[in-house]
């Protein structure tokens, strides 16, 4: 493996809609507005955009019932895919498009980086939209639990994602002595970051340690504050080749490294801690190799935190701390915006809302562009983004730099 496109691709404009607790009448206008903002922030117009990609999946189910009695989500109302956006905007100039069925927005972003590097298109737009599921929690069909659900749902798994993610975290806690007291520090810091971000659903709504520690258990050791909240929202980024951005008035973020996750090595009905950790390590090792960077070079780290403990997994895999040490590492202000390793200064998923890694990706680009506003890390030149949950969620990692590296 030899990474061949270091410094060749850049992020130009980015845009983030304000995350909201309730859905707009449709997500179509929200997506069009947010993407238009990203295109214009790039100094471009829609006629320049010849690549499109997204990760369209919305978790949970919509309030619409199809002719077969299944709850479903409607394109344009609850989600926006590539065909829909291309047709709605009449993007006849498109040369490349791609839709991803697993993962987070990070996998779509990686495909866009590689598409522009290959030269199959010049300016690719990556976006992610989310809506609040209106159909209620997923419940097994009246006909029973099929597929792998038959080995989990009769035992009380289902309805919510928390038990599935509590199990591997229970292994971490038992092995390394991590407690909710430790995690309180991370969650409170992230909510403080989100409270400073005007695009967060939790803007000006920080929480205290007591709020976290007194939050009712849903699936021990997880409460709802360990999991990101459903929101309606959208984020978008434009990528192009560095050569095309040479005369741009927009400060670019150079993509100086990337890596993608593999698959888990065992297949019990839930993913074990060791599988999460091994997969994250696999991606982290590739990122350091591809970028030529090391953990000491990083000024800002953004980590997927759809569940808070994903951050422990990534901190350890990336080598910011040792195995089993992340719950100690996040203490003492170390991950604050002015700390040793600022983490998720925009608020991540826990502090902004469930955007499947979009906030982390946009923040990472903005940090090295110097346009992160209320969450800017002073003097940030290198940022790293771990864009997904590592093992099952299809994720990719990236390193961005202010100047070619």
């Amino acid at each position, binding site marked *: 493996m030899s990474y061949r496109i270091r410094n060749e691709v850049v992020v130009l404009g980015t845009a983030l809609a304000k995350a909201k607790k309730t859905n707009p009448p449709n997500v179509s206008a929200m997506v069009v507005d947010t993407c238009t903002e990203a295109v214009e922030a790039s100094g471009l117009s829609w006629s320049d955009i010849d690549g499109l990609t997204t990760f369209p999946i919305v978790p949970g189910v919509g309030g619409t019932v199809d002719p077969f009695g299944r709850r479903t989500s409607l394109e344009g109302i609850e989600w926006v895919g590539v065909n829909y956006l291309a047709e709605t905007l009449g993007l006849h100039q498109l040369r490349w498009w791609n839709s991803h069925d697993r993962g987070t927005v990070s996998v779509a972003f990686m495909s866009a980086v590689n598409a522009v590097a290959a030269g199959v298109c010049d300016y690719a737009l990556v976006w992610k939209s989310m809506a609040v599921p209106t159909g209620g929690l997923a419940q097994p069909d009246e006909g029973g639990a099929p597929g792998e659900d038959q080995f989990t749902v009769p035992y009380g798994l289902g309805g919510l994602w928390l038990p599935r993610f509590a199990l591997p975290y229970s292994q971490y806690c038992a092995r390394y002595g991590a407690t909710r007291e430790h995690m309180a520090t991370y969650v409170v810091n992230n909510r403080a970051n989100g409270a400073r971000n005007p695009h967060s659903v939790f803007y000006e709504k920080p929480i205290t340690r007591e709020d976290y520690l007194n939050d009712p258990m849903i*699936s021990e050791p997880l409460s709802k504050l360990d999991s990101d909240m459903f929101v309606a929202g959208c984020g978008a980024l434009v990528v192009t080749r560095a050569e095309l951005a040479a005369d741009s008035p927009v400060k670019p973020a150079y993509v100086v490294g990337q890596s993608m996750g593999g698959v888990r090595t065992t297949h*019990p009905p839930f993913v074990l801690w060791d599988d999460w950790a091994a997969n994250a390590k696999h991606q982290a090792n590739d990122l350091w190799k591809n970028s030529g960077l090391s953990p000491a070079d990083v000024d800002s780290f953004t980590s997927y935190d759809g569940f808070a403990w994903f951050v422990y997994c990534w901190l350890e895999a990336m080598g910011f701390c040792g195995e089993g040490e992340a719950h100690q590492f996040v203490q003492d202000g170390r991950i604050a915006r002015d700390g040793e390793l600022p983490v998720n200064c925009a608020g991540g998923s826990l502090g902004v809302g469930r955007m499947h890694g979009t906030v982390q990706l946009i923040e990472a680009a903005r940090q090295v562009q110097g346009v992160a506003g209320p969450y800017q890390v002073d003097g940030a030149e290198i940022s790293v983004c771990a864009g997904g949950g590592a093992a099952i969620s299809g994720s990719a990692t990236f390193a961005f730099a202010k100047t070619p590296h």
Partner: protein
Amino acid sequence: MPTIQRPLPSPSALTQPFWEATSQGRLEIQRCTKCATFHHPPVPQCSHCRSIELGWVEVSGRGTIAAATIVRNSRLKGMEGKTIPIIGAELEEQANLILLSNLVNAEAEEAVIGRPVEVVFEEIGGGFALPQFRLTQRTNA
């Protein structure tokens, strides 16, 4: 008497042998006839040696709690409001051979990683018996 109305499994041809065995009080796990690797949930092809000749063998039903969570105030249909200890029971036959299950005949708080468990079967209606686990005094060899 079960106080929980559990969602019933909906077996496929691949999983039918598992539920047939449990309904007769046996825990059978799919095992590759070529390389003897166990698989759970069952698979169409062995991920270890790629054989498609997979059979079913009875296992001891003894294992260890490898992961544990306690669901409070469940929202799952038929289990609303219940406290449910969910465990990953790692069977003694093979590392990482794990059944997701419940701890029964115990307080929920006794679902602690490392404790030895053994299988019991709970009839849940529809002719199905669900493998569950209870604590044992056995020490791990």
